[in-house]
C-alpha cells in the first residue's frame, strides 16, 4: 500500500473510531450537551480536510463532529469540549453543535438548518475582496436544502461570482422519517443548473475518489470564480428499530441516534453492518481485508489520549 494511501485510510479509521469512542461515552451518560455524530460521513470529511489549502475556509452545520475530527486528527480536545472542560478545543465555549477550529480553517458551525449558507457567502465575499486565491467550503444536509436560505445563498454566490464548494450530504433520512415519506423529491441538479451553477454527484464513499474529484473542483471554482454544488450520497448507519403504536413490529431506522450503533470495540467491530456505502467497507476492499491490523494501533492511541 502506498504511504499516502495508508495515511488516508488511517485518517478515515481514526474519524470512525473516535466517533465510536464518543458514542460509547454518550451511551454512558457522560455528556450534558447534545452531540450529533456523523457515522458514515468519514470519507467525505477526510477528503474535504485533505483538499483544503492554507486560507481555505470551512463552514459546518450542527453535524460537524467528523469534520472537526478529520481536521484536528486528535480526539482529546474534542471530547474535552463535549465534556465542557476548559481544556476543550474552544475552552468549553461552544460544546458540540457550534464547534469550530479557526486555526485549521473551520470558522463557523451553525446549529440552525440552512443558517450557515449565507454566512458562507459573506466569508467568501471577504476572501474575494481581500484578493485571496482561496475557496469557501460549506456543508449542509438534505434537510437544509428545504430552507429558503439555501436558494437565497446559491443565488448570491452565483451573482457575486464567489469561488465556493457547497457540499450537500444526502443520507435520505430526516430523523426517524425517510425523506420520501415526508416531502417531494428535490432534483438538486436541475435546481443548481437553473441558477447556472454546476452540479456534481458523488457516491460510494471512496475517500481516494473523493479527494481526486474535490481537488479538481477546487481548482475549477477558483479559476472560473463560481460556486459548485456537490451532492454526496451516504448513510448515517444508525440501524435501530422505532417502536410506536403506528409500527408495533418496529420500523427500521437507518439514522444515527444516541443509543446506536451497538458495537464491541474490543473485537474491532467497527463496521455497523455489511453496508456497501460504509466507508469502512470501501476501505476493506482497498486493502484486501486486513483492517484489524490497522484498527488496533489507532484504537490504542485514541484510548490512551482520553484515558
Amino acid at each position, binding site marked *: 500500500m502506498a504511504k499516502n494511501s495508508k495515511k488516508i485510510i488511517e485518517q478515515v479509521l481514526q474519524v470512525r473510531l473516535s466517533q465510536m469512542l464518543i458514542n460509547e461515552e454518550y451511551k454512558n451518560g457522560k455528556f*450534558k*450537551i447534545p452531540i450529533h455524530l456523523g457515522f458514515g460521513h468519514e470519507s467525505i470529511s477526510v477528503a474535504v480536510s485533505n483538499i483544503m489549502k492554507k486560507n481555505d*475556509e470551512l463552514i459546518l452545520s450542527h453535524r460537524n463532529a467528523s469534520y472537526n475530527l478529520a481536521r484536528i486528527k486528535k480526539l482529546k480536545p474534542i471530547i474535552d469540549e463535549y465534556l*465542557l472542560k476548559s481544556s476543550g478545543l*474552544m475552552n*468549553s*465555549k*461552544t*460544546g458540540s453543535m*457550534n464547534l*469550530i477550529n479557526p486555526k485549521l480553517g473551520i*470558522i*463557523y*458551525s*451553525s*446549529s*440552525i438548518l440552512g*443558517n*450557515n*449558507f*449565507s*454566512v*458562507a*457567502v*459573506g*466569508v*467568501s*465575499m*471577504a*476572501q474575494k*475582496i*481581500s484578493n485571496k486565491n482561496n475557496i469557501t467550503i460549506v456543508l449542509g444536509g438534505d434537510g437544509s436544502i428545504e430552507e*429558503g*436560505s439555501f436558494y*437565497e*445563498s446559491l*443565488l*448570491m454566490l452565483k*451573482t*457575486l461570482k464567489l469561488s465556493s464548494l457547497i457540499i450537500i450530504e444526502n443520507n435520505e433520512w430526516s430523523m426517524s422519517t425517510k425523506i420520501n415519506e415526508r416531502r417531494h423529491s428535490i432534483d438538486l441538479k436541475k435546481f443548481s443548473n437553473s441558477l447556472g451553477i454546476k452540479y456534481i454527484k458523488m457516491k460510494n464513499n471512496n475517500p481516494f475518489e473523493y479527494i481526486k474529484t474535490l481537488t479538481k473542483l477546487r481548482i475549477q471554482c477558483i479559476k472560473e470564480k463560481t460556486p459548485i454544488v456537490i451532492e454526496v450520497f451516504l448513510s448515517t448507519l444508525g440501524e435501530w428499530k422505532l417502536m410506536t403504536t403506528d409500527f408495533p413490529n418496529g420500523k427500521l431506522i437507518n439514522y444515527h441516534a444516541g443509543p446506536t450503533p451497538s458495537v464491541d470495540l474490543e473485537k474491532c467491530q467497527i463496521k455497523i453492518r455489511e453496508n456497501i456505502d460504509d466507508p469502512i467497507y470501501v476501505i476493506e476492499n482497498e486493502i484486501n481485508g486486513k483492517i484489524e491490523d490497522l484498527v488496533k494501533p489507532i484504537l490504542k492511541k485514541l484510548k490512551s489520549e482520553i484515558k
Partner: protein
Amino acid sequence: MKYLDFINKQICKTVLKPKKIVLFGQNITAGSHLGGLTKKLQVNDKSKIINSTNSENSLCGFGFGLMMNNVSSVFFMKQLDFLLLGIDHLVNTYNIIRSTKNDLKSSFTIMPIIVDNGYQGPQSSFNNFADICSIARIPGYAISTKFEAEKIISEKLISPGFRIIGISQRLFKNEINELRAIKRNKNLTLIQYAKGSNVTIVCFNFSFSIGYELLQKFHERKIKSSLFNITSLVPISWKTIIEDVKKTKNLIVIDDSKSQNVACDNLISQILINNNLINVQIIRRSIDDNWLKPNLDNLEINVSKIIKKLSN
C-alpha cells in the same frame, strides 16, 4: 438641513474612511436610493457597493460572514419589518460569533428605516426599534437629532462588532433638531439635552420631537424641565434619570412605539422601586460574560432572602 440629508452626509463621510468595506442592500444605488438615504455613496478602491438581491435573511448572514472574515460592511434596509426575515441571524449567528470571537477587528451594521409615517398599513405597525434590539441584547441606536446623527454614525457605524442603527421615515423631511446634548453616557444610549428642577421628560423610540415641544411649552410657563432621549434599551443604567426624578418629583415618559412590551415600562418600574413607592423584587437572570456558554440554564432563587425582603 433636513434630517435625511444630514444623515446621508454623515454616512457618506464615514464610509470613505476604511480601506475595505462592503455597502449593500436592495436598490441602494438605484431609483430613489432608499428615499435618499444612500445617495452619492462612494467607497475606496478595495471596497464594494452591492445593489443586492431581495434576500433579507441571507443578507444578514452575509454581513456576519464578512465581519468574521475581517471585512466591515453596512446593510441598508428600506423597512424595519424586512429585518424580521433575518431574526435567525440576529439571534443565533450573532450569539455564536460573540461567544467565540473576542478579537473582532471589523464591523457589521444594519441600518433600517423605521416605517413610522403610518400610511403603509400593516407595515407601519412594527415601529418599536427596541423590540428588535432586545431579542438578543443587540446594541441599537435610534437617531433623532443632529447630535445623535453626528456621534452615533461617526462612533458606531464602522466600529468593530455588530449593531443596528435605526432612522425614522416620519422625520425624513423635517429640519433636523439641532439641540446640543449636555450629557451622554459612554454607549450613546442615554442622552440629556436639558436640565431643570420641575419636571423630568424622557423620550423613547422616535418621540423626541414631542418631548422637545413639551420642553418649549413648559419654558413659556416658567416650568423648568430636564429632557432625555433614550436611543436604545439594551443594556442601560437608569441612574442619571432616577437621580433627576428624585429632584423634580415629576416624570413624563413618552413612547411612540406600538408594541405591548415597551421600553419605557422598564424605566417606570425602576423609578417606582428606587423611590420606595412600592416594594418590588425582580427575580430574573443575571447576565454575565458566560451567558452564551453551554450551561445548566436554571434560574436560581434564594427563598429566605426573598421572604426577608417582603414588607409586612
